[in-house]
C-alpha cells in the first residue's frame, strides 16, 4: 500500500514536471529564430590592412546637409468609399536653426491639415489639428501612425495602391519642398 502511494506520488510529480517543461518549451517557440552572424563577419586575420577603414568617423566629420530632408513619405491606402486618409513622413532638419512645418498643400484633396493624436488611459484615440510642427536643429521629427500625421480630408479621387502623389510641405523659414508620397 505504502509503495503504491509512493509510486503514485512520484509519477504524478513527474506529470507536473513534464507539463511545466512543455509550457516552457512552448513559450520558447515564440522567440525569434537564431540569426547566423557568421556570413557577414569580417575576416579578422587581415585586420592590419583594414584597420584604417574600420575606424569610425568622428561625429563632427559627418557632413551636415544644411537643408531639410524627408524620408519614407507615404499615404495610407483607404477603400474608395473613404474620403479621408492620413500621410506620414520623417522630416530632418539639417540646418542650424529650428524650422517649423506650417502647412501642406496638394490637389489631392479638399483640405489638408497637420494633426496630432492623443490616447487616453482607456485607450481612446482622438486626433486634433495643430497649427504647426517644430523641428529642432539637427534633429528629425517623425510623423507616423497613431502619432502626428498629415490629415487628408475629401480626397478628390480614390487612391490607388502603389501610386505616387505629390504634396507641398511649407516651412516658416525655408522654401517649400515638393514631396512624392507613395500610397500603401
Amino acid at each position: 500500500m505504502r509503495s503504491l502511494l509512493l509510486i503514485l506520488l512520484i509519477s504524478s510529480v513527474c506529470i507536473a514536471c513534464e507539463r511545466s517543461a512543455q509550457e516552457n518549451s512552448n513559450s520558447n517557440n515564440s522567440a525569434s529564430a537564431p540569426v547566423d552572424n557568421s556570413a557577414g563577419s569580417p575576416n579578422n586575420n587581415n585586420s592590419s590592412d583594414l584597420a584604417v577603414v574600420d575606424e569610425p568617423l568622428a561625429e563632427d566629420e559627418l557632413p551636415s546637409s544644411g537643408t531639410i530632408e524627408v524620408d519614407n513619405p507615404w499615404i495610407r491606402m483607404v477603400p474608395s468609399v473613404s474620403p479621408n486618409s492620413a500621410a506620414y513622413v520623417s522630416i530632418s532638419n539639417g540646418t542650424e536653426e529650428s524650422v517649423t512645418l506650417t502647412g501642406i498643400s496638394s490637389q489631392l484633396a479638399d483640405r489638408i491639415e497637420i494633426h496630432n493624436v492623443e490616447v487616453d488611459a482607456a485607450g481612446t484615440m482622438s486626433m486634433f489639428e495643430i497649427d504647426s510642427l517644430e523641428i529642432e536643429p539637427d534633429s528629425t521629427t517623425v510623423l507616423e501612425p497613431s502619432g502626428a500625421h498629415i490629415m487628408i480630408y475629401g480626397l478628390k479621387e480614390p487612391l490607388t495602391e502603389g501610386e505616387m502623389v505629390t504634396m507641398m510641405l511649407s516651412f516658416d523659414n525655408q522654401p517649400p519642398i515638393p514631396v512624392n508620397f507613395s500610397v500603401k
Partner: protein
Amino acid sequence: MLNKGIIIAIALASLAAGYFVAQSSKPQAPVIDDSVIFVYPQTRSLANVSLTDMNGQNITPADFKGDWWVLYFGFTFCPDACPMALANMKQIKTRLPENTNIKFGLISVDPQRDTPERLKEYVTFFHPDFYAATSDAAAIDALTASVNVVYAISGDRSSDDYTVDHSNFMVLLNPAGKHAGIISSPHDPEKIATELRKLAAS
C-alpha cells in the same frame, strides 16, 4: 508514535498525489499571452440590440454565436486608426487556416454616414470575408457600453467633416456569443494569429 507519523505522512502524500493526478487529467485550458489577447476571467453578455448588417439584414449579437469573432468599433471616414486596424485584421486573417472559425467584423459607431452599402464596400476592400454592421445611436451606445468601447463624435455633425474618437482595441467574442476578451493596440498580426489559433483550438 512513529507509526502515526508515517500514516500522516502517507495520508498527506496520497492527498498530494490525488491532487496532481486530478490536475493533470483535467483538459488543459490554453495558456494565452495576455499581453497579446487579454482573456477575461469571466465572459460578459453583449447588449441585446438590433443591428443592420452590410447586406441590409437585421441581426442581433446572438447571431454571432457559433464562431469566434474579432470586432473593431470604428467608422469608414476614419483616416488612421480604422484602416490600420482593418489592414491588421487582414494580416491576421491571412495567417489563419482557410476553414477557420475565427471571423472579423467592423461595427460602425457612425450610422449617420455609414450605410450598409458603404460598410460592405469598405470592409470587403480589406478582405472578401470581412463583415460589418451598425445601428441607430441608442443601440450603438448600449452595445459599445456592454463591451467597454468608448466613442465620441467631435465636430459639426451637420457637415461631413466631423470625426469620431473611439477605442482602439479589438473586441473578442467566443462561440457562445459572449464578450471573452480584448486585443489591445499596437496590434502585431503574427502574435495575435498565434494566440487566436490556440484559443480556437481549445
